[in-house]
């Protein structure tokens, strides 16, 4: 193999003398930080640092918000230590940030000087040929008669070589009897664009982290959500989110449709979800409609609503001891298995003389198994509501906010049957249960569904997308294009004879592709092109 020259910033910065005084240390530190070896090490650190977050549950990672609490319960000894190390918020932890910020600093320090050098080399002429061309790649040499015996009708070899190389897209310069040509500057440009895109990406990510928000809502059929913070079930603002001025809109879930596989091995697997929404924006009174499905969000001026889940919301009417309606409407029950067996509570604070509360579960396709009732299918083929009842004080006036999914039983008394067992009933649609002692009644009117929406606003995502495109284009360019040089030298021998030499140099990791030099040789050399033994054709592949 012939000479192989790689231009690597690292190689030039890694050879440095030992530091002697204060400035020396600083310079040494900076050089080490911006060396290629440091880049490799920091990249490895980054990869390793990312691992624990994929194995341990993480706060703020969407899949299961309760996972960290569950881990803490299961591993009470391990949890505090891991928590102190930030293992449950790996991607927001200081040490993770330290690695990637250091990497970005190192990269900038490495790539900016390269930028400067690229700029200089683009503006200056291609490099002069080394004295000994035979030590370069793809070298050929032959002797020739001086063209045309000196007559001006024939092009000189220098002119021919210039023309050929120009046509092949080289930057060419002739100095006397020497042609210098270079091609593939774009590779360096690609490399710069690629590395700088990582900084742009950081800006995009930061914009989202600083100004965006994410929130979740659950909306039963027929209900309306208005985009203000207090209406969210969960709301994660960023540092500078303008929570008082969220995009003004309201959405109503008109209808939710779900279809499931009814036969075969994948029975019960979801096949189709569709949320039919009506919405209004700003102060515009016009009501518009849109269907939202997985992968088809609703986009209102950059604030987007994504369908992320669904469940059942039985519609009930509660009457109090006097027979007045104390509550009426859909109540969201949270699914807890893939067949949508769901848990929930119903509260009737307006009931007099005593408030009423109900606790129980809903089965869309109720069946009785060995363990008792269960849901056999996710669709509502045989919906039943199983409830127990409580009377007393719901504790809702105490001032502290209360979850709509739990019943505070401290001020309540469970309704009992005459035999001393807790009062409980299974209701089908249309059925009513009357509480013992005439405390009230509950009617299961019909089945409605609810849908979960993730609502997100990320003002940085366009920047990130632009960074992604820069990254891809820059990377592909820097990997696909090979920067290379070609030289042609004509030396006058005695009388009418001259020697022509052609050689090249690859500026990348791999040997020169012989096609450029071959083309020059073919144009200059009379007769067929033999493979001379002295030429080194190594990089013929690729």
């Amino acid at each position: 193999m012939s000479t192989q020259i790689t231009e690597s910033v690292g190689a030039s910065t890694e050879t440095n003398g030992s530091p002697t005084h204060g400035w020396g240390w600083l310079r040494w530190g900076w050089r080490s930080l911006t060396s290629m070896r440091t880049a490799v090490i920091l990249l490895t650190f980054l990869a390793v640092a990312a691992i624990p977050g994929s194995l341990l549950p993480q706060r703020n990672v969407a899949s299961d918000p309760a996972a960290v609490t569950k881990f803490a319960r299961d591993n009470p000894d391990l949890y505090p230590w891991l928590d102190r190390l930030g293992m449950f918020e790996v991607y927001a932890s200081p040490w993770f940030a330290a690695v990637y910020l250091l990497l970005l600093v190192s990269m900038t320090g490495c790539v900016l000087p390269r930028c400067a050098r690229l700029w200089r080399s683009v503006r200056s002429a291609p490099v002069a040929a080394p004295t000994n061309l035979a030590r370069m790649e793809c070298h050929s040499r032959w002797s020739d008669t001086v063209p045309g015996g000196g007559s001006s009708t024939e092009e000189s070899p220098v002119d021919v070589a210039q023309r050929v190389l120009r046509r092949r897209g080289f930057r060419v310069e002739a100095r006397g009897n020497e042609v210098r040509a270079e091609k593939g500057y774009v590779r360096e440009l690609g490399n710069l664009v690629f590395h700088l895109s990582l900084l742009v990406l950081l800006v995009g990510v930061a914009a989202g982290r600083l100004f965006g928000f994410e929130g979740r809502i659950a909306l039963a059929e027929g209900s309306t959500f208005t985009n203000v913070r207090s209406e969210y079930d969960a709301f994660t603002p960023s540092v500078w989110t303008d929570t008082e001025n969220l995009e003004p809109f309201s959405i109503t879930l008109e209808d939710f449709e779900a279809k499931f596989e009814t036969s075969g091995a994948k029975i019960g697997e979801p096949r189709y979800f569709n949320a039919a929404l009506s919405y209004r924006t700003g102060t515009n009174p016009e009501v518009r409609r849109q269907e939202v499905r997985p992968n088809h969000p609703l986009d209102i001026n950059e604030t987007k609503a994504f369908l992320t889940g669904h469940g059942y919301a039985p519609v009930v009417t509660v009457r109090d001891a006097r027979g007045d309606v104390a509550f009426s409407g859909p109540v969201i029950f949270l699914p807890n298995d893939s067949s949508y067996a769901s848990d929930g509570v119903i509260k009737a604070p307006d009931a007099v003389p005593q408030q009423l509360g109900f606790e129980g579960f809903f089965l869309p396709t109720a069946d009785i198994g060995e363990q008792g009732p269960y849901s056999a299918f996710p669709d509502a083929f045989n919906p039943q509501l199983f409830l127990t009842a409580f009377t007393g004080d719901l504790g809702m006036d105490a001032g502290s906010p209360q979850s709509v999914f739990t019943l505070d039983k401290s001020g309540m008394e469970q309704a009992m049957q005459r035999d001393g067992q807790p009062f409980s009933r299974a209701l089908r649609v249309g059925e009513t249960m009357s509480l013992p002692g005439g405390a009230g009644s509950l009617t299961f009117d019909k089945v409605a569904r609810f849908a979960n929406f993730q609502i997100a606003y990320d003002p940085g995502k366009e920047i990130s997308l632009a960074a992604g495109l820069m990254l891809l284009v820059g990377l592909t360019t820097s990997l696909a294009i090979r920067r290379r040089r070609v030289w042609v030298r004509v030396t006058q021998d005695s009388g009418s004879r001259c020697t022509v030499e052609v050689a090249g140099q690859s500026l990348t990791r791999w040997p020169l592709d012989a096609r450029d030099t071959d083309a020059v040789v073919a144009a200059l050399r009379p007769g067929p092109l033999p493979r001379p033994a002295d030429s080194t054709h190594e990089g013929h592949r690729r």
Partner: protein
Amino acid sequence: MTDPTMMESLSNLFVYSAIAVYSLALLAHAAETATRTTPRARATVTPAGVTAQEPPSTATMQTPRSARWGAVGTSLALAGFVLTLAATVTRGLAAGRAPWGNMYEFALVSTVAVGGAYLFFLTREPVRAFGVWIVALVLLALGMAVTVFYTPVDELVPVLDSYWLVIHVAAAIVSGGIFSLGAVATALFLVRDRAERRALSSGAPAPRGRYAATLPASTTLAQVAHAAHMFAFPIWTFAVLAGAVWAENSWGRYWGWDPKETWAFITWVMYAAYLHAESTAGWRGRRAAWFALAGYAAFLFNFFGVNLWISGLHSYAGV
């Protein structure tokens, strides 16, 4: 109109035929390796030191017998590739969608990608020496596909029903095929490189019977490995970016450190480290090779480990 159940059976038939044909290809390649001889001592020892002369090409290591076995092996591998391709196409026709929606289908399509990458490289590089490993890898994937992962044709769950699935998964699988080739080249490079170093330090060429001695020169292997990684890396980058665009469209955030995303990131970073190590004086070659293998390990873990053991938003892939 095509009959879906007929197409599904046809697809399965193609898969089993591919297993049979690839098994024969494995035997042929093994016979090729066994009958290949090492060139006689081409390293010349001079008093001043050792001048290691690389065998200029693999051709010198071929005997007429091994060349014949090699040709048989290549033809069989080509036939096996065509069969897996046919199995994929018929599976797609049976399902009425792009046939990469569950683990079985991923495994099947990845064998097409690995086989295709190998055959593509074979037209320009001396990679036939890898044939036995590539075929073994493909057989392993097909074997797992039919035993562990098999699932009948079905529709997709709604989240997967997106053209981004087609783009994102296709790019991931294509780059995976080329990464596999790169990983095989890298591993063989390490084997061969060690043998060459030993030969250099002991002053004698590697013993002729050694497996390493039948491999192409380490420079050739390094070149193939580097070419494969440079080719695959932008495609993998595209796959990750396409995944981010899809995630934005599906969940409202383009990056959420879901385990699948995290391991895609780890894979990407390890391969970036490999490319940097390749441009670092002193790390090129052997040391860089370990980064490439670590990247491949992360890639495989993302496919098997994360799908099977770690729950996340991506764990609907359906075994």
